[in-house]
């Protein structure tokens, strides 16, 4: 199982804080996870446009070629604006 979490604009557009995905080997690629979620509807597609989207794996900012394994927590969010 993968836990997928969303924050800020991304969270508001998909209208959901987090969802779970049954893990399978095709989901070891972040891009596959992203595009599978983007296909869930127009708002999901808009929210997950890769343009400025950031991704964290197990609560660490990660590059798009990071290999995902079963049990991971994957977060999608826009550039951060704290401080």
């Amino acid at each position: 199982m993968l836990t997928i979490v969303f924050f800020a604009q991304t969270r508001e557009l998909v209208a959901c804080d987090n969802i779970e995905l049954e893990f399978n080997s095709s989901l070891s690629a972040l891009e596959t996870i992203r595009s599978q979620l983007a296909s869930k509807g127009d708002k999901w597609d808009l929210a997950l446009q890769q343009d400025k989207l950031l991704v964290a794996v197990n609560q660490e900012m990660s590059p798009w070629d990071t290999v995902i394994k079963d049990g991971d927590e994957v977060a999608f969010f826009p550039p951060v604006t704290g401080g």
Partner: protein
Amino acid sequence: MISVQTADFDIAKLYQQMSNNQLNPNGYGAVVTFVGKVRDFNQQQQIGAMTLEHYPGMTEKSLEAIVEQTKARWPIGEPIIIHRVGELAPGDQIVYIGVVSAHRKAAFEACEFLIDYLKIKAPFWKKEQTETGYQWVDARENDTTAADRWSQGNH
């Protein structure tokens, strides 16, 4: 010390605590602090209120990583980082960064490095209430430039 909290912070208590946190407080001759506050204007728009969202768990981890990076680079004592989340109004304090060092140059550089990296690495997001409704704050190009400068060896 790192804290992500909804409550306001008291800069006098943090200043005292920063001294108490050091093994030898009298070895540190320089104390540099930064406080970020909510401004009433941003990008030509008047701001009524602000909400700060964060990624619980990851926020603390990312701040700890930034602190470790800072301590590896400058001879500083234990710093303090406080960042508020939730509802804030213009004039409210958002973030506190406090650094002590034997000499001022290290204290200034480490403090500025901490806030520069927090701005691009720590998962916080601001949403502002303007005349035209609530809107998410856009990331500033400047913040990336500010952080990049630390890896160019001109400091």
